[in-house]
């Protein structure tokens, strides 16, 4: 806990308290950020990190919290986001706020259009956006629609948008959660570059290696209270030290103990070919073949856009793309899965990577979500038994240790990690034979990750097959019994746990590029 006060402070948040009906999200939190540093905020899911940043940026306006925000030596009372932006504070939320139909340029200048006599001056906008894109290192035409570029690039557009607002303090809420390693690295380098130009950043992330790599100080929040602020260089902070602060004890290992008990092959896919839903002749899966054995955890490795999600979703009742050819064999019999319903009835489950858009109805509460994919399990003659529903949700809340006051709480109010647990509960309740998990630990803290790995291993131990799609190689290596690699829609290899390492996986994940 060394406080080197050489650099002047840009921001001080003094005993901030924020309450929601029934929840004290923040209680007397203090945060001190120095000019020109990268300041990380760490804490478990639901600790209050996002809430603190929303207080700072005026999403929760002055008066809806207690405490003081001192920014550039003045007490600030932001009424809304515009007020904080005018002061040079820009927040980039975890869910990106770009409009998919508009172009990069239009998004950068949205709400901030350069005008002449009240008419948008597109020439000026273009000139400035080319400049801004160069500063963030994005080589794209400013006219490209947002929906045509990947999340990594979208993140850069968000930053360009912030730079356009002459940002002094940039807040990033889990900016790399949805990015692959290359894109993440690019983003981190960019942050360091901005730091060189005097822009201060606050970054929330659950990827501790990144935090260790780029941050100067770290403030740790636990249960809505600020626990400590670490000076990364001075205190010699490493990941274990951060974890100790976050969870209040050390974590012996990142993966629970697990001895796989692998049985016979029960699920097999042959010659699986699927076309892109819009583009006629683009194949997103090309003759994929793989199998899963009982009790086995199978990993799918690949870069973003390699077609892992497409493969999973096309198998799951053809919920993505246009089916061209292929066979699914389960328990020795060929099955046809034309709808999601059929897939579920045949014992498949798919946990999406996109929790908010595809996994949850944010208007629902925890208990309705838990039973949503298996209403049959709690109903008789099509009438839902609400007592039973409550009981089921309550059981999962206890066994997965979901942090919530009651199962009648709306899922929108849960923090990311706890939402993920609810989605997992939903699929566990369908009692699948084969559960496909797409990025199951995205945006989830180390402690909860450990718990989710435990849940996955428990499912495997019950003789179920589990497929894990993940962009984090350490996670795949630690969890899977076997790993398939996918490159541009084709399966390029398969490695056993014993022979797999980052290097040979990476080689197979980029197979074509190696050959070329």
């Amino acid at each position, binding site marked *: 806990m060394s406080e080197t006060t050489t650099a002047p402070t840009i921001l001080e948040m003094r005993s901030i308290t924020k309450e929601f*009906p029934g929840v004290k999200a923040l209680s007397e939190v203090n945060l001190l950020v120095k000019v020109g540093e990268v300041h990380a905020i760490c804490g478990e899911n639901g600790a209050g990190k996002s809430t603190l940043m929303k207080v700072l940026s005026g999403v929760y306006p002055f008066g809806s919290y207690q405490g003081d925000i001192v920014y550039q030596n003045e007490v600030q009372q932001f009424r809304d986001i515009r007020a904080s932006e005018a002061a040079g504070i820009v927040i980039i939320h975890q869910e990106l706020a770009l409009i998919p*139909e508009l172009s990069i340029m239009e998004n950068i200048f949205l709400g901030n259009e350069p005008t002449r006599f009240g008419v948008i001056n597109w020439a000026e906008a273009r000139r400035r956006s080319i400049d801004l894109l160069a500063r963030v290192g994005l080589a794209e035409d400013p006219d490209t629609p947002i929906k045509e570029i990947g999340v990594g690039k979208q993140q850069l557009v968000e930053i360009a948008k912030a730079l356009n607002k002459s940002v002094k303090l940039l807040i990033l809420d889990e900016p790399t959660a949805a990015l692959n390693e290359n894109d993440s690295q690019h983003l981190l380098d960019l942050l360091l570059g901005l730091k060189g130009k005097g822009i201060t950043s606050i970054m929330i992330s659950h990827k501790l290696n990144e935090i260790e790599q780029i941050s100067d100080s770290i403030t740790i929040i636990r249960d809505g209270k600020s626990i400590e602020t670490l000076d990364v260089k001075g205190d010699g902070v490493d990941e274990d030290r951060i974890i100790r602060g976050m969870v209040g004890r050390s974590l012996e290992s990142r993966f629970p103990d697990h001895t796989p008990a692998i049985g016979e092959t029960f699920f097999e896919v042959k010659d699986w070919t699927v076309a892109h839903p819009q583009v006629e002749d683009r194949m997103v899966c090309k003759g994929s073949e793989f199998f899963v054995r009982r009790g086995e955890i199978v990993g799918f490795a690949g870069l973003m856009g390699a077609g892992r999600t497409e493969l999973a979703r096309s198998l799951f009742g053809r919920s993505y793309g246009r089916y061209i050819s292929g066979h699914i064999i389960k328990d020795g019999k060929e099955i046809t899965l034309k*709808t*999601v319903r059929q897939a579920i009835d045949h014992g498949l489950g*798919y946990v999406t990577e996109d929790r908010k858009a595809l996994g949850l109805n944010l208007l*629902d509460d925890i208990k309705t979500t838990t039973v949503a994919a298996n209403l049959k399990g709690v109903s008789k003659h099509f009438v839902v038994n609400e007592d039973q529903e409550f009981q089921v949700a309550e059981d999962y809340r206890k066994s997965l240790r979901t942090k919530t006051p009651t199962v009648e709480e709306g899922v929108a109010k849960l923090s990311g990690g706890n939402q993920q647990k609810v989605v997992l509960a939903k699929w566990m309740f369908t009692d699948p034979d084969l559960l496909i998990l797409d990025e199951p630990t995205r945006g989830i803290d180390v402690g909860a990750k450990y718990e989710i790995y435990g849940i996955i291993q428990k499912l495997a131990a019950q003789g179920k097959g589990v497929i894990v799609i993940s962009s984090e190689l350490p996670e795949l290596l630690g969890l899977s019994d076997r790993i398939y690699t996918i490159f541009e829609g084709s399966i390029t290899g398969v490695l056993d746990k014993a022979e797999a390492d980052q290097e040979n996986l990476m080689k197979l994940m980029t197979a074509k590029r190696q050959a070329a």
Partner: protein
Amino acid sequence: MNALKKIFGGDIRQFGMIFALVALIVFFQIMTGGITLTPENVISLFNGNSYILILAIGMVLVIIAGHIDLSVGSVAAFVGIAVALAMRDWGFPSWMGVVYGLLLGALVGAWQGFWVAKVGIPAFIVTLAGMLLFRGLNQLLGKSNSVPVPGDFQNIGAGYLPEIGPDTGYNNLTLLLGIVAIVAIVWGELRRRKASIALGAEVEETWVMVTRLVLICGALLYATYLFATGRPGTSFPISGIILAALVLVYGFISSRTVIGRHVYAVGGNKHAAELSGVQAKRVDFLVMMNMSILAGLAGMIFVARSTASGPFDGVGWELDAIAAVFIGGAAVSGGVGTVMGSIVGGLVMAVLNNGLQLLGVGSDWTQIFKGLVLLAAVAFDVYNKSQGKPSIIGLLLKNFQKTPEPQAA
């Protein structure tokens, strides 16, 4: 205020609506010098609005699923005239007329459901087309004339519970109905409480439940008294019984059955619902079809009440029904709403209409007031949500979801 909230549940919206309804009734009762709550007026208020309330039941499901139906007035008019003609020209007996009307409604609904669910045209467009189409068909069939309906058919719109049993000075069947309703409510509440205790869930304090029951039962008792003491020959209307049955059935369907859950799921997040195995297209088809069946029923009740089917029946009904649903707390973006709320919303409009009429206010001012009430009710809702309540975030996130399906990685 806190105590009130406890009694009516934490939902400020619902509470606000019931409160507004009661306040409105009291206001008009005073202003009209006690005419509002006479048996005659209450009975005619029910008779004159049951068809709008029936439409609201169907409409709330359509809106929860994320659609809208503009064609209900025209569909009602079309079914009304077709049934009237079938009874006059083909000699259909009344009961066959009703069955025929419901089947026609189903057919119309299947037509609209096909375009919405199978072809994927927004319901706004499909039903805008339907609004013209079925209005035109009504006038084509009836040659723009009125067609009278036989006396026993008129019962479903203008009939009352008959007098039976000893002369008690009250309508016996109405009394019986009221008592059965009260017993059922008390029994249901006690049972629910027992089940919650058995589950270990939190239960409200006893006084809260008792107060609520006393208030509800008191209101019911009073209503029963009003309906049972109407002019000789009048009592609780048949259309009111149809409405009550529909409220019970649809309230149950929407909150307790699998298909009901699916409607909310599709309206809340279609993609997520589909990935949970919900057949969204089927849900879309069913809500649209159901709406037209209820529109057909509403049309028949109206025709029965006005003793003839005419070319301008049902004009503007869609707006009344939609207004009732939104006053009753549904969200434009779908996923939110209740049958009971929509009924309360519809009653607010009905009482307003009736009260202003009693006061001799012209249709000009009546429309102005109705418009303002709709705006105020929804503004109240929006304001509530923006007061640091989480729902505004939910709403924002929801709009975010409605953007095209994110690129799969």
